[in-house]
């Protein structure tokens, strides 16, 4: 061993040493966050719960926590649809409007036309799918940017909702039980849960499994990551995009059903804030607006963070405007963190 030892075999590509940039603590953190984008919202949520729990003892009361989940159920559901679309590097400004339109169709057809509740729900689903198909058509066929498409369809769907409903709210008492079923509560260990919350959680499980375990899920990520690469790999980009918008439409119809249960009414004026709140949940949940990166679990955390902040700040006795202020800060921090994470090995 007097001389330097034998060189590594050059015939095998000696690539291992190229895994550099893992050395400094900061870059190691960044690599970890990069790989598991749901970590940072999870940390924020835990910290927020601890801080608000310390500020006001009522915050951690089971009834209050249950209330937060109920407040999050609708936006959490819409945010699943939003996540799918943002994963493809798109954005949907019309999710709230589609949800309300679908809920009005469910309520009006059953109450005013006397159609059976199951059929009413089905018609609501058809409306959600049609709206998704329309958005998807404009994005894939006319090649319009999703931002512009959904900015336009937002107005269209809001107008259609008001035209169709005549601006009138349908109260839950008038509806058949099935339509308000999502508002039904049940006890687990003295804590109230609604069927709607359960449904939302189920949706997260199903969509997470699909994204993780199926080829379609991988293709959604690949299309958002780099559509040209996906195309060259033999993936039909337009078909994937279209299926994403259709899936989003179906999820929005489910959101409509949950919304009717939650508010015990179908109101044409509900949901205006949900268009942007769903984006907030997705972004705070660590999903990148540039597509191809993120998880629905992050989105659930994001939705819960917003719910916890609103609830916690109001329990702390702060003006409601400070809640809005805090959410704004959260968004900017979340996107800044995403930007920093994406600089990995660049």
């Amino acid at each position, binding site marked *: 061993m007097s001389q330097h030892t034998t060189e590594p075999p*050059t*015939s*095998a*590509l*000696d*690539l*291992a040493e*190229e*895994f550099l940039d893992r050395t400094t603590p900061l870059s190691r953190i960044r*690599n970890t966050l*990069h*790989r598991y984008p749901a970590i940072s919202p999870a940390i924020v949520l835990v910290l927020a719960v601890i801080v608000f729990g310390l500020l006001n003892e009522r915050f951690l009361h089971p009834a209050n926590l249950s209330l937060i989940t109920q407040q999050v159920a609708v936006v959490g559901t819409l945010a699943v649809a939003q996540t799918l679309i943002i994963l493809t590097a798109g954005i949907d400004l019309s999710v709230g409007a589609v949800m309300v339109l679908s809920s009005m169709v469910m309520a009006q057809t059953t109450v005013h036309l006397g159609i059976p509740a199951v059929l009413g729900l089905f018609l609501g689903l058809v409306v959600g799918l049609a709206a998704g198909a329309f958005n998807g058509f404009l994005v894939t066929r006319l090649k319009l940017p999703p931002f512009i498409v959904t900015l336009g369809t937002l107005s269209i769907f809001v107008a259609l909702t008001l035209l169709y409903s005549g601006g009138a709210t349908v109260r839950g008492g008038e509806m058949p039980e099935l339509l308000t079923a999502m508002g039904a509560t049940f006890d687990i260990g003295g804590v109230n849960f609604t069927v709607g919350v359960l449904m939302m959680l189920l949706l997260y499980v199903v969509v997470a499994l699909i994204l993780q*375990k*199926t*080829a*379609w899920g*991988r*293709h959604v*990520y*690949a299309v958002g*990551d*780099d559509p*040209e*690469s*996906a*195309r*060259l*790999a*033999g*993936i039909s980009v337009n078909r994937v995009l279209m299926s994403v918008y259709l899936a989003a439409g179906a999820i929005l119809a489910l959101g409509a059903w949950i919304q009717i249960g939650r508010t015990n009414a179908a109101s044409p004026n509900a949901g205006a804030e949900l268009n942007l709140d769903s984006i907030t949940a997705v972004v705070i949940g660590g999903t990148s607006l540039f597509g*191809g*990166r993120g998880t629905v679990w992050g989105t659930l955390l994001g939705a819960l963070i917003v719910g916890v902040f609103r609830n916690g700040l109001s329990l702390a006795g702060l003006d409601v405007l400070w809640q809005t202020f805090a959410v704004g800060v959260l968004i900017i921090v979340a996107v800044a963190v995403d930007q920093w994470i994406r600089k*990995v*090995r660049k």
Partner: protein
Amino acid sequence: MIIATDAAGQAPAAGSAETRTPILRARRLVKTFGRVVGLDGVSLELYPGEVLAVIGDNGAGKSTLIKCLTGAEIPDEGEIFLDGKPVHFKRPQDARAAGIETVYQNLAVSPALDVAANLFLGREERKKGILGSVFRVVDQKGMRQKARDELTALGISTLQDVTVAVENLSGGQRQAVAVARAAAFGSKVVVLDEPTAALGVRESNQVLELIRNLRERGIPVILISHNMPHVFDVADRIHIQRLGKRAATITPETHSMTDAVAIMTGAARE
């Protein structure tokens, strides 16, 4: 001296090549874009187990030639034979389905997906049984194992962590992933478009080594490159395009780089 090609496109090419049957053969391909003639009756033969380099100046028609062979363009005239049978590619997917895999210059990899997912992108394998058939669950474990095997077989032994996202890899490693994907699925022909153009010296050598590995495994390679040293390093034969025509097909043994450049630029005549 320069070996000429006859008008019928029958190349009395170097070595013993003419005694074998080509795996891929193009006969008198013509492709025009409006009034611009991209290919003016070009023929090409690729024999089993060889590396055929395609060189030529910008606008000489080498991209168009490759696009016709890989289904990205449809030739106006001429025929393409794969394994002796005529083929008509309408889309890149057709060529791929027939066994011609192309590694594009801009590397068709998805940065956020891991190595194994990239290798199987667009042709994911499903789990056996009801999970795969009804619930369409992909066989992640199996695909990762196959990815490892494939990389090992190609001599990319140190890229064993197939769960690393491709964006965390260097340029050479990404190229290795792209090449591995092209070679992984029982392909008959692998086409590499400027694989070393964006790489440093060491990474280029790795890719050239990879090309030799492909040849050793019996997979014929078409290599499009501007880099003469690289071409003369790995190619068995060199197809030279000039002004939409095949100027010549030479070998590194019989010709020097200077000869090749002379034919490319028209300084030497057929």
